[in-house]
């Protein structure tokens, strides 16, 4: 419990800044929607729907109905996802590796707690951070999208999207935990996690451009919970949920195993 509280206290400031940034981002994006409001939204949609996939994704327009608030939010949503992924990767990779990096690992390990317990507390702290980030983003999205949506009910859509983001956050957080337990040099944990995160993001863009690559979509978590599917189509796909849960549990399990045996670099 003490370790958990200590972690929460040390990440309080950065979490606060992240949340403010998310609120401002969503407010600014939706405010822009109101300002431009895409008067010619309908005719624009007609044109966009006739374009081939590759060109649509280059305009970032895809299949969203830009004349509606939720469609506009869906088009902006990839940035929310990207920020959530960055936050989660940084939290996951820093929370364990920082002890060695800041030379406090010695102090922590000499306390009468087992290593497993240390990881559990840190894991819980990381999950709390992610959950707070997610909930704040969800609430501000519901508020701002709802404000501009002219009475349409958007709450369900936003909640669905944010549940998808939560999975994505957990995947990258557990990847970070796993790396910081596994890599010999604690300094490499966050660059590696962030590197993989960016690589999968770029892969997801490439899949958008070229439909031949769609077989690779299982490799990038950014494709698991697609805003288009969640708003307009099937909703959650079982295969991706199973896959995400599998990835998350494997990484967390690996983090425990590797960290128990780790030679601390002091």
């Amino acid at each position, binding site marked *: 419990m003490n370790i958990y509280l200590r972690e929460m206290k040390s990440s309080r400031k950065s979490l606060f800044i992240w949340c403010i940034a998310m609120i401002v981002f969503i407010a600014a994006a939706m405010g822009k929607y109101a300002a431009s409001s895409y008067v010619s939204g309908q005719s624009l949609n007609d044109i966009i729907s006739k374009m081939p996939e590759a060109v649509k994704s280059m305009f970032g327009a895809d299949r969203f109905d830009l004349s509606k608030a939720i469609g506009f939010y869906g088009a902006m949503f990839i940035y929310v996802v990207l920020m959530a992924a960055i936050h989660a990767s940084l939290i996951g990779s820093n929370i364990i590796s920082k002890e060695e990096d800041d030379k406090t690992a010695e102090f922590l390990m000499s306390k009468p707690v087992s290593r497993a317990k240390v990881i559990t507390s840190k894991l819980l702290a990381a999950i709390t951070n992610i959950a707070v980030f997610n909930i704040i983003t969800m609430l501000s999205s519901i508020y701002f999208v709802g404000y501009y949506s002219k009475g349409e009910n958007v709450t369900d859509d936003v909640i669905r999207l944010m549940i998808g983001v939560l999975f994505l956050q957990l995947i990258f957080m557990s990847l970070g935990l796993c790396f910081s337990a596994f890599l010999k040099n604690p300094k490499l944990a966050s660059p590696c996690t*962030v590197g993989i995160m960016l690589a999968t993001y770029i892969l997801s863009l490439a899949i958008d451009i070229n439909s031949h690559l769609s077989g690779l979509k299982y490799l990038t978590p950014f494709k698991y919970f697609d805003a288009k599917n969640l708003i307009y189509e099937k909703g959650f796909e079982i295969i991706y949920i199973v896959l995400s849960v599998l990835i998350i549990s494997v990484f967390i399990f690996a983090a425990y195993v590797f960290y128990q045996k780790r030679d601390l670099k002091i």
Partner: protein
Amino acid sequence: MNMVLHELKSCRKSTIVWAISIALMTIFFLSLYPSFSSSASLVKKILEGYPEPVRKAFGISIDDVTKFLGFYSYMFSYVVLLGAIQAMNYGISAISKEIKLKTADFLITKPVRRDEVLTSKLFASLISLIITDIIYLVTAFITAESVAKESFNIKLFFMISVTLFFVQVIFMSIGILLSTIMRKIKSTISISLGVVFAFYIIGMLQATLNDKAMKYITPFKYFDAGYIIKNSSYDMTFVIISLFVVVVSILLSYVFFLKRDIYAV
């Protein structure tokens, strides 16, 4: 000179990793071009049927997008994103790593002036960036030559590609300024990612919303590939702004670093 060499040595590995990953990404994206261009000619036909104002609403003229340079500049924006993160990392870590690793008092007690320290670190970061960019340029050019079916304007290609270096220098100088202002930086990458992505997302919003004023806020829009292709020159306003940002932040970092309290361990 010793300091420059030492710095270069310490970021040798990271320069290699960055250069290789940027080069790999370039090869990967450019190799998608052939299949992209075949589907793109379809759109062109559809769009030609629409009136001029509707086409303008898209911001980019369709003609540019379907040509090789249009595709290249789309891909190039991701290269710039990665390059900016690298440059920001170098800028921030130049000073902050000495403090964090507790080697600052060792360095400062050597018979060199503080401004010499900062100058050598600046040069070392610049050299690493230049090496990365040269590797990128060569890879991009070779790949472009082999995938592009039609011939493209080589001068424009290089004019666009070189802007990678300009944006990197802007971010590096912002990074150095940050590292001289902030007392202790625990994690370089969280700050560099935060700053770079903040600017990047502003740039993305700018592109989606076509807001003129937002262009001035983010360095990612200072060297707009669309403008370069159209006018085959850089937009002078933004060149001046970039120079201003770079010079001011480097000058300020000297001012702050010369006066800074450096704590012995």
